[in-house]
């Protein structure tokens, strides 16, 4: 490593600075922060700026300078675009507002110095470049900017220093050391306070901003700083908002490398100007690169140690398959991470010391147990607090291994420690009395069987949760830097193995378990352990982050090259044959069949018709546009792409050809890129600009088909753990006319072990599903689907479908469906009715005698939260039972979907049999995410643990909702993961900007409610006395009518009055649902915010009301003890006090924000109606409802005022726009 003096010759100006100050170092005080100040220098930039020729490309400019490879410091190539200056001027203004308004207002001493410095920094319009290599840019013109008048390009030599920006506005200059980590520079500048820096923002010389996690509890891999980098490193105690740090770093990235520091030398007072730390010592030893801590799974598949869980989770969108064995248990676990805060999954446990069943039934097969687990993260780790999680093992299963736990984990460097409590199986050592027994003695013992929650398995044994004695669990995990692919684990097992489900298990001779994990690859771990003091454990784990799965399409035919001008031979596309070839080319490039092409005016319209398929529509649209630009006449200035599916209108895109071409033949600065790509989908049927001359139309008849491998597994039955069939599956899709199509599928079974398949599960219900074995085993060649369908669009937003034939492998029949699905709506409503008959076991054309009518009313809801969709489907099922099916699923940006479903009908758990009710987990993955060849299809995995007859649905292969997926607002949003975006600041994690450090979103919502409540208390305290006097007067005055109205209510207890009273009492529930819908994004951001304010108000008012009840304890009218019967404060039954009416209070708390924001006083009448109901039901006196209403109105109004009065840095409202920009807005007083 070079000594301090040997800075590179190229860093001219800063080299002179450092050489000048070196003689002074020996005299400088030996204390941090008092190093030598860098003398200011004239503002001549050390850069080589050469005028651009408007219209030339960056590659041309570089070649003119003799820099074909970008020069000796490619990161120092700076492109300043005049186009970007207005936006960046806004950034600067916002930043100054934060610094001078928010931070200064909070008393931050350094904020004025920051503000002065920022004020002096120029607005440059800098745009990061993907490459400074002229020869690369020449070949990739879409990455080669076209320079405009007013643009500037400059190069520079590597500055030779790295600057650390401290939170006291001091800038510390250090010599650049190749490969040195950001943490080392920060440590050099802060000294012993460096450990208070959790996160630093590294503004690299090339204009990229990267967040570096530096602390022992959060260290993760990061790029080292480049020469000229600025490291913004606030200490946690200073409390800079995350958003402000991101903004600051983003603005600093607009400055040329090293120049911001130069300006600081001019702008700041000498005591604050950049300095070299007096005691800085250059080390020849590079600091070790920080590493992520690899958290592997435990024997149960959950993230944890060996037998015990930790509070750690997998990355969001991950899966993990774990196969583990420690006698007598072999476990196959599949865990999913649908959210950052939820890890859940299922397992099969092979219990070697117990037979599955009677030998005649299942031979010598060992017992198989199914179970479901869930773990919830309660809080994220910080510098001073651990990560905490609450979990459940064998949540819904036989309950053999039922456990609950609360565990905390904390990291320090290469060590991770966990400590917690476990109940149930994991806590069977049971050395502790249940701490919850202090609240209720019921927690002291752990119930089993029916008293816990059921005897048929599959039910949530909530009666046993956290009951019984507990045990301490915990352990350590060590990941040595000197052995990077290994982890070592040690844990205190909470189970002593004295009470195993089946006899024959040797009790533990030691509570200490030890293990070692080897990371065989990025997706596989091997583990070996020694548990209980006498057992060997082995396990294999396979895992990946499905939400990030992506693969380049190296096997796709490349699209036509995009050239600036329409090719001359595009005019030749005049014959029908030529257009037919273009349609074929569009099909090859996109996988979308073309229904028609029309030309007219300046518009070319292409209609694509089924199957639109799964996802990644934007990439396909780009390919289609490349084809159209290549072959369309030059006069076609607009392309309209219309998507229909079997004639059902989906969505439409209108693209300005020139804008699209511009964006694809040069690198545009962000503002111009946004303008060029400002294309929003619209409903089908908009103006097509005269494109009414059909140049191509596909025949209305078509036939598509394919053959693929087929594999059908059945897992966990008594005949064998895996009963399977493998073969081929042939399918076809035939279009028979406009809106009429036929689907069919034939399976051929080639390889199977069906000779073992003998068991039919018993059932108390009609055998609508439990006889599936006969269907699978009777015939080798089976017709699994053959149906004709006809669909119609009844209006712009409603659709109908009729169908008949072999609907699925067990049922044939006819049916119809209606769907109301507005374009781009969060909601859809559908109804389907089917008359079906069970098919013959050979799955040919014969039918059995069982017939039934099934149907559903289905509500589809895109919640707008974390891309979660939900359906509720109420109806009649195959066995004649009636009930509802619920599904919840989350779809990630790359199309990967994780979901659950369950069905509850009027069939009791006993009638249903084993499992109690139908439930399952499903996982969908687009082929596009895992194959190098584009495909429109999905892989779908469904785990349905038991096939029973209750809650059995007809498995229709096609539904109107799936046929209208193109109407979903996310249709164009799905994309391949891992796209490289090089816009300024987008290395930042936009989701984290909105995070307050709490777990998103549940505890962040709770934190918001708590914060609002604290402020509300202050607002109440600050109310003038007149307010309270007025309220007291109104309540007191209304009390005069308590007795007469109570008498009136007592005399009006007839059916109609009771009905009115009951409906009025339900008003708060309807209002709450309405506020909830508003808060999920059904409308605009104001409705969203107001809905959330209303919900918070309701929660806070409920709490206030409870306090009043406990304090007053007034008898209700129905007690008949008169209007003035009071118990003492906190008396027995005080929680049921008549004063105040919580129904009325909550109702007013809910409506007040809406009534005031939207000037709709009529809403108060809805809330007031609740009072009628409560009085009629003799639950409250008039004065109780007046008091409740007044306080509810106050709470609603004051909470709304908090929404309106949010200040910068303290309740700034954030919205994430559809263009993925963050907007912060507030109103200044």
């Amino acid at each position, binding site marked *: 490593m070079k000594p301090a003096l040997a800075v590179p010759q190229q860093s001219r100006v800063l080299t002179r600075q450092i050489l000048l100050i070196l003689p002074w170092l020996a005299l400088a005080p030996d204390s941090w922060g008092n190093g030598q100040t860098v003398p200011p220098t004239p503002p001549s930039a050390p850069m080589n700026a050469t005028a651009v020729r408007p219209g030339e490309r960056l590659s041309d400019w570089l070649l003119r300078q003799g820099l074909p490879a970008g020069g000796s410091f490619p990161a120092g190539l700076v492109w300043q675009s005049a186009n970007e200056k207005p936006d960046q001027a806004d950034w600067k203004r916002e930043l100054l507002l934060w610094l001078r308004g928010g931070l200064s207002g909070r008393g931050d001493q350094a904020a004025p110095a920051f503000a002065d410095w920022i004020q002096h920094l120029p607005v440059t319009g800098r745009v990061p470049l993907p490459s400074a*290599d002229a020869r690369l840019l020449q070949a990739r013109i879409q990455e080669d900017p076209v320079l405009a008048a007013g643009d500037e390009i400059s190069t520079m030599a590597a500055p030779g220093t790295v600057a650390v920006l401290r939170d006291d506005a001091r800038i510390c200059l250090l010599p650049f050391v190749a490969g040195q980590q950001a943490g080392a520079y920060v440590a050099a500048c802060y000294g012993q306070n460096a450990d208070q820096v959790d996160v630093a923002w590294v503004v690299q010389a090339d204009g990229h901003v990267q967040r570096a996690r530096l602390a022992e509890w959060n260290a993760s891999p990061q790029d080292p700083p480049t*020469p000229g980098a600025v490291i913004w490193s606030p200490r946690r105690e200073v409390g800079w908002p995350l958003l402000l740090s991101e903004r600051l770093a983003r603005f600093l990235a607009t400055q040329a490398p090293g120049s911001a520091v130069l300006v600081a030398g001019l702008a700041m007072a000498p005591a604050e100007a950049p300095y070299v730390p007096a005691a800085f010592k250059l080390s020849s030893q590079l600091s070790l690169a920080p590493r992520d801590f690899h958290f592997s799974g435990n024997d149960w598949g959950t993230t944890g140690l060996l037998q015990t869980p930790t509070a750690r989770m997998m990355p969001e969108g991950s899966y993990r398959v774990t196969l583990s064995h420690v006698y007598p248990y072999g476990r196959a676990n599949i865990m999913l991470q649908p959210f950052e805060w939820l890890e859940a999954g299922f397992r099969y446990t092979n219990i070697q010391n117990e037979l599955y069943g009677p030998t005649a039934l299942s031979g010598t097969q060992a017992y198989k147990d199914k179970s479901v687990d869930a773990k919830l993260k309660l809080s994220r780790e910080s510098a001073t607090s651990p990560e905490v999680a609450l979990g459940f093992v064998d949540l819904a299963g036989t309950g053999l291994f039922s456990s609950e736990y609360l565990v905390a984990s904390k990291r320090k460097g290469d060590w991770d420690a966990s400590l917690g409590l476990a109940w149930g199986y994991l806590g069977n050592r049971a050395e502790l009395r249940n701490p919850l027994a202090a609240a209720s003695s019921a927690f002291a013992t752990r119930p089993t069987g029916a008293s816990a929650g059921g005897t048929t398995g599959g039910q949530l044994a909530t009666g046993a949760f956290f009951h019984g004695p507990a045990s301490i669990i915990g352990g350590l995990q060590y990941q040595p830097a000197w052995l990077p692919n290994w982890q070592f684990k040690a844990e205190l097992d909470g189970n002593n193995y004295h009470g195993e489900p089946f006899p024959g298990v040797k009790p533990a001779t030691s509570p200490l378990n030890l293990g070692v994990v080897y990371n065989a690859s990025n997706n596989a771990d091997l583990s070996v352990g020694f548990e209980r003091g006498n057992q060997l454990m082995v396990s294999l784990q396979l895992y990946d982050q499905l939400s990030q799965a992506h*693969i380049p399409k190296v096997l796709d035919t490349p699209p036509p090259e995009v050239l600036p001008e329409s090719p001359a031979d595009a005019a030749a596309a005049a014959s029908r044959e030529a257009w037919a070839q273009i349609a074929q080319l569009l099909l090859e490039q996109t996988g979308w069949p073309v229904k028609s092409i029309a030309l007219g005016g300046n518009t070319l319209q292409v209609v694509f018709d089924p199957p639109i398929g799964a996802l990644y529509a934007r990439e396909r649209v780009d390919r289609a546009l490349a084809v159209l630009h290549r072959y369309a006449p030059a006069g076609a200035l607009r392309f309209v792409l219309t998507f229909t599916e079997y004639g059902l209108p989906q969505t439409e895109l209108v693209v300005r050809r020139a804008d699209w071409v511009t964006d694809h033949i040069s690198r545009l600065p962000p503002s111009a890129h946004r303008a060029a790509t400002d294309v929003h989908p619209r409903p089908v049927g908009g103006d097509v600009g005269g494109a009414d001359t059909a140049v191509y139309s596909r025949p209305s008849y078509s036939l598509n088909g394919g053959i*693929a491998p087929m594999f059908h597994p059945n897992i966990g039955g008594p005949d064998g753990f895996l009963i399977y069939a493998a073969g081929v599956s042939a*399918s076809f899709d035939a279009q028979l006319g406009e809106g009429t199509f036929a689907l069919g599928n034939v399976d051929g079974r080639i390889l199977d072990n069906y000779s073992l398949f003998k068991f039919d599960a018993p059932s108390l219900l009609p055998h609508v599903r439990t006889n599936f074995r006969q269907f699978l085993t009777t015939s080798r060649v089976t017709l699994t689907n053959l149906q004709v369908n006809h669909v119609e669009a009844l209006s712009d937003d409603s659709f109908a479908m009729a169908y008949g034939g072999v609907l699925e492998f067990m049922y044939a029949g006819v049916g119809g469906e209606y769907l109301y699905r507005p374009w781009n709506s969060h909601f859809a409503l559908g109804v389907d009715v089917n008359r079906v008959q069970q098919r013959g076991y050979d799955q040919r054309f014969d039918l059995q005698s069982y017939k039934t009518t099934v149907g559903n009313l289905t509500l589809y809801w895109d919640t707008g939260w974390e891309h979660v969709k939900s359906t509720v489907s109420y109806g009649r099922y195959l066995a004649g039972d009636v009930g509802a099916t619920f599904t919840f699923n989350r779809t990630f940006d790359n199309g990967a979907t994780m979901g659950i479903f369950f069905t509850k009908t009027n069939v009791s758990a006993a009638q249903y049999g084993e499992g109690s009710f139908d439930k399952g987990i499903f996982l969908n993955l687009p082929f596009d995410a*895992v194959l190098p060849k584009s495909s429109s*299809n999905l892989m779908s995995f469904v785990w349905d643990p038991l096939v029973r007859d209750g809650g059995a649905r007809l498995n229709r292969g096609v539904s109107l909702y799936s046929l209208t997926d193109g109407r979903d607002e996310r249709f164009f949003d799905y994309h391949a993961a891992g796209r490289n975006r090089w816009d300024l600041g987008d290395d930042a994690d936009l989701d984290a900007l909105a995070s307050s450090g709490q777990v998103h979103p549940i505890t962040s919502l709770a934190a918001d409610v708590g914060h609002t409540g604290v402020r509300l208390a202050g607002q109440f305290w600050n109310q003038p006395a007149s307010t309270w006097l007025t309220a007291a007067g109104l309540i007191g005055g209304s009390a005069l009518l308590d007795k007469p109205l109570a008498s009136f209510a007592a005399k009006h207890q007839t059916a109609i009055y009771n009905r009115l009273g009951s409906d009025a009492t339900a008003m708060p529930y309807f209002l709450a649902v309405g506020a909830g819908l508003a808060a999920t994004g059904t409308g605009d951001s104001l409705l969203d915010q107001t809905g959330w304010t209303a919900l918070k108000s309701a929660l806070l008012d409920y709490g206030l009301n409870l306090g009043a009840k406990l304090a007053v304890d007034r008898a209700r009218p129905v007690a008949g003890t008169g209007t003035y019967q009071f118990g003492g404060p906190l008396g027995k039954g005080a929680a049921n006090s008549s004063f105040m009416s919580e129904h009325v209070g909550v109702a007013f708390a809910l409506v007040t924000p809406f009534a005031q924001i939207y000037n709709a006083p009529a809403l108060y009448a809805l809330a007031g109606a609740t009072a009628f109901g409560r009085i009629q039901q003799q639950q409250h006196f008039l004065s109780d409802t007046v008091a409740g209403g007044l306080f509810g109105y106050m709470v609603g109004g004051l909470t709304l005022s908090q929404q309106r009065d949010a200040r910068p840095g303290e309740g700034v409202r954030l919205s994430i726009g559809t263009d993925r920009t963050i907007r912060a807005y507030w109103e200044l007083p």
Partner: protein
Amino acid sequence: MPVAARSVSPSLPLKVQALPGSGFLLQKRFQRVAPLAVVLSLLAACSTGASAVRTTLSGVVFENDPTANVALNSKLFYERVTLGGHPALLVLGFEDGPAAGKTEVWYSHEREVLRLQGGRLIGTAGMTLNWTAVSFPDGVPAWPTGDTETSAVFRRRHSAEPGHLTDLDETLQLTSIAPPSNSGLKDLDPAKLRWVEERVLTGVGRALPPARYGLSRALPSRVVYGEQCLAGAFCLTWQRWPVTGAVPE
């Protein structure tokens, strides 16, 4: 000053010969992921995705050499390059710099760039790992000529992306070696070339396999073949193509 470049290709935009599959990009990831993807898709039993699966299978199991049996354009110069064992033909686009130390700029079909100077790799662009600002502050010694000759130690400095790795210094040394039996040399007897190994003595590349060069025996400074690992999983070979005429007699 304008670069002294000789444009080798007929015109710009560069019309690189279209060779299916001749781009690298992420071939290796494709290879690693594709088997899993195929297994997953089989398990999912989705029949209408079959064509993508079939194409993937043929790409994985039956991958053929896209550089074999290709009709070459006699007006272009080619370099057969492999990345992780997967071959592609690159075309010479430009020669930059003075005649005494010209840099050859080679292009793949996917518009990836490989720079060679005197047969030595001095840069990549558009790939998943790119070397930039490669320089030899002390110059480069002559290729050893004897069977056991070792050159003086010399320095190399480079930057690498992704990762913002800047000004990484290494010291290297050249050593004559016997013709290796495990090189990526194609259709040519290694014994016909003189071999030199370039080993990193200090610096980030010390743990990587040494680079190797096969030089013409007739023209001692003409590099016919080279191989170098830029990272553990990123190893390139390059060889003048076609073989006929690549080795001066």
